[in-house]
């Protein structure tokens, strides 16, 4: 029964191959707003399911180290795949799947449910923002694939700024919460695991660099389009600022 619940949870808290269905489901939702809400809610539901299948119940089978390796491998797989994604929606989903894959790693170490929820939100909030903005790009430009019409900073400065901030938050850049979640996860295990985790940080930085390259640089060659509203950027800014303040406040207990 515990195995069945765990497998069910891999569909909600993305872990390969369950993550494939998760991504398929998110992509099938009609609007950016719906996709954003889904990536906030589904992982939390998955964690609820996991509450009934604690890792200790699987421990006798000696799965713990293999489970941790699988989680890290799943995160690495999605980080590598994010390198070649130029569509903001796809990029955001792949990055989210990579980050949330690590929840399973932390879960196997016996972390508290509260820590896991914070971990899921650390990636969920910026991914929700990025998916919402991807939806806004689709509405205005007919697609969210970058690099076709040059940099968007000139024509959509607010949306671009928000997307850059969300991208940085999603790639565990300090002082965003994912950075501190990553630190907490790493200090809770022996340093040997860092050999698998650290390439992730490199790949995320690489993926962000490639996305920003297409998003920011070069003259815009498309038609004139409207930017997102001031209220929208203010709401996004407030959301990210609150998450930063909370993560900085919580960082005091990291020693």
């Amino acid at each position, binding site marked *: 029964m515990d195995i069945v619940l765990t497998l069910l949870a891999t569909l909600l808290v993305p872990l390969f191959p369950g993550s*494939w269905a998760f*991504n*398929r489901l998110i*992509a099938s939702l009609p609007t950016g707003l719906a996709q954003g809400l889904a990536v906030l809610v589904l992982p939390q539901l998955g964690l609820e399911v996991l509450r009934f299948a604690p890792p200790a119940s699987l421990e006798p089978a000696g799965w713990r180290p293999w489970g941790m390796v699988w989680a890290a491998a799943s995160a690495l*797989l999605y980080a*590598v*795949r*994010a*390198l*070649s*994604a130029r569509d903001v929606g*796809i990029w955001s*989903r792949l990055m989210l799947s990579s980050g949330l894959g690590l929840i399973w790693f932390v879960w196997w170490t016996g972390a508290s449910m509260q820590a896991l929820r914070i971990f899921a939100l650390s990636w969920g909030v910026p991914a929700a923002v990025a998916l919402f903005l991807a939806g806004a790009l689709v509405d205005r430009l007919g697609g969210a694939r970058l690099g076709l019409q040059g*940099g968007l*900073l*000139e024509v959509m400065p607010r949306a671009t700024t928000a997307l850059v901030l969300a991208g*940085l938050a999603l790639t565990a*850049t*300090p*002082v965003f919460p994912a*950075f501190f979640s990553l*630190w907490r996860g*790493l*200090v809770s295990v*022996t*340093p*040997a695991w*860092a050999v698998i985790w*650290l*390439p992730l*940080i*490199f790949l995320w*930085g*690489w993926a962000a*660099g*490639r996305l*920003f*390259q297409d998003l*920011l*640089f*070069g*003259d815009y060659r498309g038609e004139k389009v409207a930017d997102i509203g001031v209220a929208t950027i203010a709401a996004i800014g407030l959301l990210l600022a609150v998450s930063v303040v909370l993560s*900085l*406040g*919580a*960082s*005091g*207990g*990291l*020693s």
Partner: protein
Amino acid sequence: MIATGMLAVLVPVLPMMSAAVLLAFLRTSRRPAARLSVGAMSVTLTLALTLLAHHILTGDAPVVVSVGSVGSLWIDPLSLVLWTFVSGISLIVHIYSVRYMIEEPGYARFFALLDLMTAVILVMVSAADLLTLLVAWFLVGVLLYFLLGHDHRRPAAGRYAFWTQITYRFGDLPLWFAALILVHAYHSVSLPVIFSRIQSAPHVQLWGVPVPELVGFLLATAAFARSAQFPLHIWLPYTMDGPTPVSALMHAGIVNAGGFLFNRFAPLFEHAAWALHWAFGMGLATALIGSGLMLMQNDIKRSLGYSTMGQMGFMVMECGLGAFPLAVFHLIAHGFFKASLFLGAGDIIGDARAHDGVPPDPIYTSVVERRPAKPSRLPWLVAASLTVLVPVVVLSLSHFFVAEHFFFEQGVVVLLFFGWVTGAQALFAAHKMSQQDPWRLMIGILASFVVIVVGYTLISHYFGKLLYPDEQVTLALYGAASIHQVSFDALVLFLAVIFVGGWALTFFADSFELGRNIGGRGRGVYLGVYALLSRELYVADIYERLSQIVLQWSRRLNVWLRWC
């Protein structure tokens, strides 16, 4: 003490607040934005200078200031010296940018980013715990990316900003790893606590390796990426597409972070001898490669980029020899020197476009046109004697009188050796210049040499006393950097043969015009070496190919899995 702590917190907070005000309220107001930014930086420099002067006058012990639950700052001589240096360089760059950037879009954003970058560097050099250090170290790379890519209309600026960002990210990984190992081994994130535990238990092991040695290797690797050591250097000469003030800030300040990292972790490197030897080797290789590639450039800014690489190699080499305070002195001296060169480069390029500026003087004729104006030189025996002997005598005497205790340490001997090479090279070059009055030229250069060596020795010695008041620490670092005496003698002999051989080769190549007479297989080798160096050792091409392979696999995986 409390007042000092309060003032100290203001040093990084002031530029941070300035950036916040610029971004929130002054995005479209150019002049007020520049005034606020320059004003904030002036106050920051004044505060840093006040704190440094207070420390020098009172000799207060270092203190750790906690900033709520956000982080902690370590107010020690290293932090105070680097605060003064960083805010000084930043103020110069700010003032220069007021007019230089006036026609650029995003003027206020540029100043906000400069302020943020300064604040983050100030936090980095004074971080008292691993997490604050890691956050600041990481953020320097991120902010530098946006500063270098400030002109978003130019794809080249973005491309080279990306190179910098990815190299910095690569260098972040060893620092992450080192931090995790230290927390695991010494159960604290506080640097003073970790250092005191290392002193009491330096032989703690992880995977059969002493922790200080393992962490020393990781910290050195992080420093290599940040200070453009071979082969992690390729970003440095190509960042000239960013605004000139950013190039100045980067070459004068940011790239020196490697030297800072060695000094911050000096108590750990006392027990990491092999990491220091590695740093010496990498620094030496980088100094030679950087200086060599500098000579092949025909673009003034890229030439300055490779010059910085060579200087960074020398700085890391100094750390590898145990001369930690000398590395800090070197990075400060190089910082001001290189900032002035970068900020003046634009004017020089502008002047050169207006008129060729070829001066009708014999030095130009001799060095650039390679033809002696008047065949008047000192007798070669006199010149050779002066070239070889004078630097040895001047360097040895000045060091012996100023710092007798360290005179026979291996690190000092190697530094003196390189000082001799540099001095002799300067005199050799002076001898090659034909002059109407060769004695006058030689005496002038000798006098300058004496002033520079004596001044440098005195300043670096007293600077070392400020950073490391406990002489035992300095001796311990020199001791850790030492190798077996026979190996050391062999190394010095080998280097001496290399340098003297190089001079002889240069001399004979010039005298017999060897370059023009190469034929057959020799010419093939010559062209091969030339191609290798002109393609900058193919390092960028190798990285490009490797990244293409990874991207190809990434695309394949995405196609197989239908982008889900």
